[in-house]
């Protein structure tokens, strides 16, 4: 009986826990509650994924309040949604369970419960985006997630987190309002807000100017939220000055949820034919993706702060996902989805390692990290493993997604695009090498010399290694990542009626 309610429980569990967390107030109790929710969330997500992959293209549908769609709001979980749910809840679980030491260090004790409340609400928003089958509902969840992540960013130690949080709030709201305009225009044309209903009613309107305007607003609005170049300027500051654990969580999940919205709208709601044949989306996205990959990778090379460096790298990695979408083929879409999965693993692993180092050294500038490799050998080794994955070294998760992307690029555009992807990987080698060089080869500075710099506490170390090991596991066994991504891509392309 409860099984039928799982799609809604996925969202309700963290949503109810958030006000509870405010009432509990004690830091330990808030953390325990968040842990419990994290465990519940991943169990539900795993069951949902198992259910939708067991059958052949099964879709779980939940009508809220018993009102059938298109009148009521409908939650719809298919392979794509369940795949994203598992990514989000997985990163969330590791960050919550293992990250407590870092949170206690960086957040004043009287504000810890607020931090976890924001965390739970952020989780609610992102999970809601992945389960909802109603376009207006998606907008509301998007705003919940963005306001809550803004709160997380503003709890950083450095005062610069405030201007970063404000910029994030402003850009996020503009992007979300653009999406609101899209929802309005779509409703005006079709009289429905349900995604499946919209998908059935939109194709005859392909020539309508209103639909074209909606499409333009959608591309810009979602592009802002997903930090697609050149709309990424809010992201580096937000990740760099957020508390370390919030950076792990946001870097692993928040742009992923936005990329999911992009896929949902372009493929499920508008339909692949409309997006690519009528609107020529790939003509627009391909140059942006390439420009983003190169510009952000070059910018990452010149950063002196590791968190900022990783944030710029995130913008480049979003570029790879967009590149996969822009190839317009099923293989490209599968590559984008598998990169979404793998990038969540590698970027949260890297931010986790940085969180461990910040805990011991006190800063995340390259100069701060000089020589910590000798003091924190295990942590530094996790950095190397996840760094290799980011670069796309064989036997790591990054290699799988780069390989899939290369194959798709060769197939659709020929050798020049594949060559550009390879060239951009070399840039990733350069910026990751700068970090590794600082950690291992640079002479120790006064701060790294002091006796307090030792290996990170065990839970943090376990978290960093869990994520780093996941990069290797999913580089060797691709059944879960690539297998499901391919099925999800087939579903998205085939969604077009």
């Amino acid at each position, binding site marked *: 009986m409860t099984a039928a309610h799982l799609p809604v429980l996925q969202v309700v569990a963290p949503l109810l826990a958030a006000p509870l967390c405010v009432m509990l107030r004690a830091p330990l109790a808030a953390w325990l509650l968040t842990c419990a929710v994290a465990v519940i969330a991943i169990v539900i997500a795993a069951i949902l994924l198992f259910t939708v992959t067991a059958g052949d293209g099964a879709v779980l549908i939940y009508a809220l309040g018993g009102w059938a769609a298109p009148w009521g709001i409908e939650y719809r979980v298919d392979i794509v949604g369940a795949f994203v749910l598992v990514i989000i809840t997985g990163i969330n679980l590791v960050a919550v369970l293992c990250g407590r030491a870092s949170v206690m260090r960086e957040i004043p004790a009287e504000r810890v419960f607020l931090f976890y409340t924001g965390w739970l609400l952020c989780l609610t928003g992102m999970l809601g985006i992945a389960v909802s089958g109603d376009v207006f509902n998606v907008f509301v969840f998007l705003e919940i997630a963005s306001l809550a992540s*803004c709160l997380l960013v503003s709890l950083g130690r450095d005062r610069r987190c405030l*201007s970063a949080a*404000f910029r994030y709030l402003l850009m996020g709201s*503009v992007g979300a309002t653009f999406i609101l305009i899209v929802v*309005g225009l779509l*409703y005006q044309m079709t009289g429905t807000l349900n995604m499946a209903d919209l998908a059935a009613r939109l194709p005859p309107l392909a020539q309508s100017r*209103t639909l074209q305007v909606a499409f333009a607003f959608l591309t810009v609005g979602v592009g802002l939220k997903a930090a697609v170049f050149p709309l990424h300027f809010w992201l580096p500051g937000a990740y760099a000055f957020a508390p370390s654990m919030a950076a792990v969580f946001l870097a692993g999940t928040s742009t992923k949820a936005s990329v999911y919205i992009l896929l949902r709208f372009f493929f499920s709601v508008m339909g692949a034919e409309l997006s690519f044949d009528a609107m020529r989306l790939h003509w627009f996205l391909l140059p942006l993706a390439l420009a983003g990959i190169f510009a952000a990778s070059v910018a990452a090379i010149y950063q002196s702060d590791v968190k900022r460096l990783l944030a710029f790298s995130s913008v480049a990695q979003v570029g790879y996902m967009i590149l996969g979408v822009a190839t317009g083929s099923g293989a490209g879409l599968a590559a984008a989805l598998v990169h979404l999965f793998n990038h969540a693993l590698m970027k949260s692993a890297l931010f986790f390692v940085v969180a461990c180092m910040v805990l011991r050294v006190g800063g995340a500038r390259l100069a701060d990290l000089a020589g910590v490799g000798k003091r924190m050998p295990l942590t530094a080794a996790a950095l190397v493993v996840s760094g290799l994955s980011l670069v796309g070294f064989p036997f790591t998760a990054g290699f799988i997604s780069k390989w899939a992307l290369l194959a798709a690029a060769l197939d659709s555009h020929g050798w020049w695009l594949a060559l550009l992807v390879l060239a951009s990987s070399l840039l990733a080698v350069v910026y990751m090498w700068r970090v590794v060089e600082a950690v291992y080869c640079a002479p120790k*500075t006064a701060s790294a010399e002091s006796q307090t710099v030792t290996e990170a506490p065990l839970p943090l170390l376990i978290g960093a290694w869990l994520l780093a090991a996941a990069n290797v596991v999913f580089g060797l066994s691709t059944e879960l990542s690539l297998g499901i991504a391919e099925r999800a891509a087939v579903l998205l392309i085939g969604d077009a009626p």
Partner: protein
Amino acid sequence: MVKVKAKAAPMDNPAGLFSYFGVIALMMLGFYIVMDSPNLVKKMVGLNIFQAAVFIFYISMGKVAGGTAPIADAAADLYSNPLPHVLILTAIVVGVSVTAMGLAIIIRIKRAYGSVDEHDIAAADAAADTAADTAGIDTAAAPPPESP
């Protein structure tokens, strides 16, 4: 401007589309303030105007020509569509939360930087960046200057 060609829009009667012109004008005004004003509070006001334009767009969309208020009445047989109004009620709540969050951050920015001007804040941040790079001082440890 293309939005003017919305559904059932009689293009031979542009005066009948006045609500769209109003919406577009308000939207662009608000958006311009968000982008151009260096004052963070004004940016917030601009964002509110921008959002209000979208609210008006939704509300005007629900109007059915000749329809009355959507309250069941024996004398009426044509009603306006109440759904956009309900949607926008939710969006207004979202807008209020965004404003509250934004103003709360502005108060903390004022306390930490002593200014709500974007240029001042950018200059202070840039100074902090270079100071940290040259002297190796952890800016995070430095106490924020109190507001005057």
